């Protein structure tokens, strides 16, 4: 059997598991939950087998390398590690409540990849990438990202449950106006070659808001709710946009074998050459943001019945970060050792390295903020969310926004 068939079967099983977990939440029947778990385990087993098969296939093609070198394989692996982590959590905490949130992510990511079926041909590596350290680097980093992803999801639930009301409509209107103004300013400035100034300014604004939220956060629940809406919009919007990308690239663009899809990120939506498409994409994001902000309280009443109390959510976030932090550390270290074996410098302050260090700092802040008196769960959840935003930026934003010198290649 070839790996793509196996991947398809795993995807269908995850779809079934997703439906089952959601019905379990809705009907509260334990039987459904058990079936959901069994289906998840089966999907996971098959996906594991598929990964191994793909690895073997690469050896049969005489290229022989780990299935982790392009976006396709990375995403497959990402879903695999997310499901693995989820299964561990289900075992340890004996709750199936998170399944309804984790499985959709796994299914959507796999569906995009499979529907599009893009760039899944096994391509050879350039010399600098042929290193065991690189393998460990990618592997460990992905596990770390998965753990932080779960921490992010739990923090999102925490922040939602911690909010009493969504606050005045002025908030969301102001947020959307800010978004629109920034988008148009960004558009104009990019045209004028003031990109750097724009990104620096935007960065300063966003950071100022984060710090405001963290330092005085407990007092500004409505602001935190707005932050929550932004984060959820970002997560959902990005997943959907990635899916559209895959479809679009498959249907209309010819991607050369071996070319990294990362170079084409969001070409179908936010960076499309056609202005109307860009406009519609942004409008859709704004609409989504408003919808999420508007309906959040409903989601809250729904969720409240199923998820554990706040202090346990806080604990789960901490445990996940406690898993992710050593992995991120290991990822950075193996990356440094690889760089040292390839060109004799373990640290070069290139954007990707620096952003992984920034991410590391943010989670170090999370770990130490616990020892600062007066910082509470909601503030910790905000830090955890900011950490994951940094993860996303490290993984995608550096290539997309900053001239990705590193761009997975180094020597190409």
């Amino acid at each position, binding site marked *: 059997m070839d790996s793509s068939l196996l991947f398809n079967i795993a995807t269908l099983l995850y779809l079934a598991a997703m439906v089952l977990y959601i019905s379990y939440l809705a009907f509260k029947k334990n039987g459904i939950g058990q079936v959901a778990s069994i289906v998840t385990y089966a999907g996971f087993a098959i996906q594991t087998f598929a990964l191994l098969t793909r690895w073997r296939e690469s050896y049969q093609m005489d290229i022989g390398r780990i299935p982790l070198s392009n976006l396709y394989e990375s995403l497959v692996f990402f879903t695999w590690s997310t499901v693995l982590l989820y299964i561990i959590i289900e075992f340890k905490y004996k709750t199936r409540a998170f399944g309804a949130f984790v499985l959709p992510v796994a299914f959507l990511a796999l569906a995009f990849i499979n529907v599009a079926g893009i760039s899944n041909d096994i391509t050879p590596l350039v010399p600098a990438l042929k290193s065991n350290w690189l393998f460990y680097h990618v592997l460990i980093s992905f596990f770390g990202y998965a753990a932080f992803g779960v921490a992010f999801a739990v923090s999102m639930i925490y922040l939602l449950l911690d909010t009493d009301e969504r606050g005045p409509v002025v908030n969301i209107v102001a947020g959307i106006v800010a978004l629109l103004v920034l988008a148009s300013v960004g558009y104009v400035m990019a045209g004028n070659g003031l990109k750097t100034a724009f990104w620096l300014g935007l960065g300063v604004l966003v950071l100022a808001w984060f710090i405001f939220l963290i330092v005085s956060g407990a007092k500004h629940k409505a602001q935190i709710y707005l932050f929550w809406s932004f984060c959820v919009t970002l997560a959902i919007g990005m997943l959907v946009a990635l899916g559209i990308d895959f479809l679009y690239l498959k249907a209309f663009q010819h991607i050369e074998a071996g070319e990294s899809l990362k170079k084409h990120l969001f070409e179908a939506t936010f960076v499309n050459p056609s202005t109307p498409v860009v406009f519609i994409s942004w409008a859709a994001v704004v609409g989504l943001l408003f919808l999420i902000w508007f309906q959040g309280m409903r989601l809250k009443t729904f969720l409240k019945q199923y998820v554990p109390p706040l202090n346990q959510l806080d604990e789960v976030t901490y445990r996940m970060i406690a898993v992710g932090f050593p992995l991120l550390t290991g990822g950075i270290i193996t990356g440094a050792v690889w760089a040292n074996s390839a*060109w004799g410098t373990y640290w070069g302050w290139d954007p990707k390295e620096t952003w992984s260090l920034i991410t590391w700092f943010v989670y*170090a*802040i999370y770990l130490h903020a616990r020892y600062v008196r007066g910082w509470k769960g909601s503030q910790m959840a905000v830090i955890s969310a900011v950490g994951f935003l940094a993860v996303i930026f490290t993984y995608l934003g550096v290539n997309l926004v900053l001239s990705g010198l590193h761009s997975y290649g180094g020597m190409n």
Partner: protein
Amino acid sequence: MENKKGFVDIFSERVWKFFSSVKLAVVLLIILAIVSVIGTVIAQNEAPEKYLQEYSQAFVNLFEVLGFFDMYHTWWFVLLLFLLTANLTVCTLDRLPPTLKIITAPLKPIEDESLKALPFKREIIIKAGRGKAEELSVKTLTRHRYRFITTGGPDETQLVTQKGVYSRLGYIITHVSILLVFIGALLGAFFGFKAFLNLPEGRASKVVYLRNEPMWDKIMDTLGVAKSPVIPAADGGLPAMPIGYYVVCDSFDVDYYINAAGIPTGMPSEYHSTLSVYDLQERKILDKRIRVNDPLSYHGITFYQSSFGAIPEGKGKIKLNVRRKNSPAAQTEPVVLDPGQAVYVPSIDRTFKALSFNPYGIRNPATGQVQFFQTENNEFINPTVELEVSRGKGSKPLYKTFIMKTEAGEPSFPEDYTIEFVEYWGARYTGLQVTKDPGVWVVYTGFIMLCVGPVIAFFGSHKKLWVRIQDRKGQTVVTVAGSANRNRIGFEREFNKIADELAK
């Protein structure tokens, strides 16, 4: 007594307190996280013209003053790192004595007073009497793999136990490892260097060209203590660093991925150079074939394969191997000739003339026709030579043939010998990255500890447990109490299980 403290004492106490605060750590980490962003948005160490293309003159001047073009080496960024290091050192030292005290503290029976403060406790009445209760407690603790000490007198017995004391060391290991990484980086900056060397095939060098000079040499030279070994740059070049031996490039080559039809694609799979080391008396010491990710190290200096290029107007030599069919592989005769040159090959009594050399030839397997392609960057993807073979010392040409590095199938030869393409040698140089970093092992030690420390800190848990068995008014009362510094939920589960088993 207060006023006896001198100003210096008060001052140093204040400083110590300031630097031992976790709040400062959080503030410093936030600042570091934020300012680090700047250097990822503004490209670092570009040529001045490039900056002027992107920013106006005013901005370029401003960024220049702030050091944004080489931000991670500015005094203020380095100062931030030093502050964090000071914070880390002081904080860790400050907490070291209490932590050690916890680790070395002997196990003590619990008293009513301290019992109150414990987060987990339960009282159980056991009807079967004290002896049975003790037996049961011992069994239960043993089953949960606690090793305990027993204390007590006539009216009470206590089993005292703990697990995972050493997990208290986790954060210390973490913090020390970060200090080691810092120290290692400093050692590298002071005593190491980064350099490069473009070495043509067949040539030797006893210097490398510096990108940064060791800071120590520079300082000592400036102070007039010791002269720096660095040879200053001649007109516009880079300063040279003597390495104390010769390094020679014996050969350089690139391998390419072969596609399904057996033809090399333009995609490199490996770069490699064979390097030899000779001492200054020109005695050979060693050689090594280096690849990307597999450098040569000698006397603390490491040579990494990093690039290659053509020597301006450099002419290469064609190297071939000739072997009679049906003779063992060892009986080959090497043939070396320049493009255009003719050479007599005694073992087969033929004369070879190289008519042409091409960097990328592909033979059509169906027709046998050979086609040539252009390459970029002086790449020899499938070097091909056209040979004219004539009898004896070169009378009439017998036949012409193409000899190439990689043939799609078995090449055929009209006479009873084979010709193998070895290399086209001497037209290119290998680009080597050369570094000396005496701090790297300190950094790596830090790395290893950094992998271990957080894991111990997060997944270890210092758990304490007391089981007190008392006779009270004719009843046997067992009090179980415990605490854990981490993963309280997990410990609560374990605690309840133990208590339940005792209550049975």
